[in-house]
């Protein structure tokens, strides 16, 4: 069975390995360049300070100008787990049924549940191993940015923690489930995409900010100098705005004109205080594990459903 799994998936496996190698080389080269620039510019002294002091803003600006485009690459990587789920997970069962080879392989001497178990163990295992290896590289690669911007509340959150591996598991599991449900490769690919987006986007947009209650700081007007926030750059700001005389919170600060001071601006809106809600940077790993747990839960559901379908609905 191991041999059969390897024989059937060796092309996918080697392709993935090839893509991984290309990405790996790219990350190594750009990562080294970033790390040495970071050191040459002496940016490590700017880390952890409010960005007002000394030459730090200029230095950070210089670094961002040179390497900012690379963050686009990080954004692209978010699609890698989905791609794996759609191209490897979805055809896993669907292609067999489509080409009717399930009739051949399920009537050899092993039961079809064992067949599915071995296939899933090897394919999911390889997928997780690959994404884990890439994760290690990504964490190293992103370190300069992590020190400047943090990894919380931006794309790096998805590519520099266990969530990355959990998303790979989720995409593969949803792919396998979709394939057993639709029995058609193309339909399964579309269903995989729909399910993955349908789970990931709401979790990331609406649930993630509230895994733990955000901390809210309120500053009465008048005590605020120039910058209302005293947060570190690594914290994740969920919401900020002002509070009016009735105690209602308003997101954002609209309609300030250039010739007003900030205080004047607030006062024209009747603001009594400003607030900022945020997730402190040290919750990063807690959030990562919570979200990984959520995706793993969905993956388990998808796999259980796939088992049930293979056992009871396919022939």
């Amino acid at each position, binding site marked *: *069975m191991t041999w059969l799994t390897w024989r059937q998936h060796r092309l996918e496996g080697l392709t993935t390995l090839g893509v991984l190698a290309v990405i790996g080389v790219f990350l190594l080269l750009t990562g080294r360049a970033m790390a040495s620039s970071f050191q040459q510019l002496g940016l490590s002294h700017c880390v952890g300070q409010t960005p007002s002091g000394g030459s730090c803003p200029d230095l950070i600006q210089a670094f961002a100008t040179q390497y900012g485009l690379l963050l686009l690459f990080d954004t692209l990587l978010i699609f890698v787990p989905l791609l794996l789920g759609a191209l490897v997970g979805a055809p896993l069962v669907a292609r067999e049924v489509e*080409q009717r*080879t399930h009739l*051949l392989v399920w009537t*050899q001497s092993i039961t079809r549940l064992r067949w599915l178990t071995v296939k899933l163990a090897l394919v999911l295992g390889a997928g997780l191993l690959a994404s884990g290896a890439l994760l290690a590289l990504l964490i190293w690669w992103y370190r300069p940015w992590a020190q400047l911007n943090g990894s919380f509340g931006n794309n790096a959150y998805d590519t520099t923690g266990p969530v990355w591996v959990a998303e790979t598991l989720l995409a593969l599991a949803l792919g396998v489930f979709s394939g057993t449900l639709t029995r058609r490769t193309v339909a399964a690919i579309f269903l995989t995409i729909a399910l993955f987006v349908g789970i990931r986007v709401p979790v990331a947009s609406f649930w993630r900010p509230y895994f733990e209650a955000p901390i809210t700081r309120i500053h009465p007007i008048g005590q605020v100098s120039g910058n209302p926030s005293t947060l570190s750059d690594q914290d994740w700001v969920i919401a900020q705005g002002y509070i009016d005389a009735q105690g209602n919170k308003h997101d954002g600060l609209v309609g300030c004109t250039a010739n007003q001071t900030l205080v004047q601006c607030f006062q024209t809106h009747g603001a009594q205080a400003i607030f900022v809600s945020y997730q402190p940077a040290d919750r990063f790993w807690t959030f990562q594990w919570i979200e990984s747990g959520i995706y793993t839960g969905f993956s388990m559901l998808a796999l259980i459903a796939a088992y049930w379908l293979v056992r009871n609905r396919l*022939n």
Partner: protein
Amino acid sequence: MSDALETTGLGKRYGRAWALQDCTLSLPAGRVAALVGPNGAGKTTLLHLSVGLLEPTAGGVQIFGLSPTAQAGEALPRIGFVAQDTPLYKGFTVAELLTLGRKLNPRWDDELARARIEMLGIPLTRRAGKLSGGQQAQVALVLALAKRPDLLLLDEPLASLDPLARREFLRTLMEAVAESGLTVLLSSHIIGDLERICDYLIILSASYVQLAGDMQEIQQGHKRLIGPRQDEAAVASIHTVIAASHTDRQTTLLVRTNGPLFGPSWDVQDVSMEDIVLAYLSQQTRDRVPLPPPAREQIRREALK
């Protein structure tokens, strides 16, 4: 010794439609049985139920006393199965398909597999997708045979083959049967090619078993009666009339005999297997004939006369 295949009240329903219903039959070990019926009669359903690809909706099926689903681990090694249109992994070479067989079957006979492939002149390095339809069917058959099964199930193996490929396929099959004495159940929508190689017949029509039994007994137990035009009621009171046709002067009946045939007005003739099968298949829409156990002794005695 339990039968190779035994079903009791076996049925499979898809939604509201029964693909197979109330199927009770037993196939003794060592037989080569033809499962005959028109397309959509439930042949594939019966075979898939037998190899555990399907779970019955009603009744049960046993292979050498084992359930092919609940006891799949024990039953599967004993069943060889060749699905309709003989699906193979098209990208695998013949050698790789044999490796698949070797890896997935504890009773695999690699020597036998290689010898047969060589005898058939099929190159081991050729991809399955590049083989002719006949060769693909042969490879699928070799895969099933090298599993060393006790029961071989073949779903319409001849349907897509040209006459030459048919003959070669059947030759491979018969050699294997002669060597190992395995039980074979082979479905087809025609009886033609199977008559020579099969000794047991199961007629399936409109999701019911119409007839099942020893081929020779069936042939001897059916007669064609030709006589002056008359009502078949008198005959039907003793024998089972399968088909009746009337012209202005003449009545022709195909009957399953339940004893000696009387009546000097009838000219009694033997019937070909093909005619028997056709008669059963064409009466599918009429009321079904109940299935008493064939009056074997009766038939034997009659045959000896």
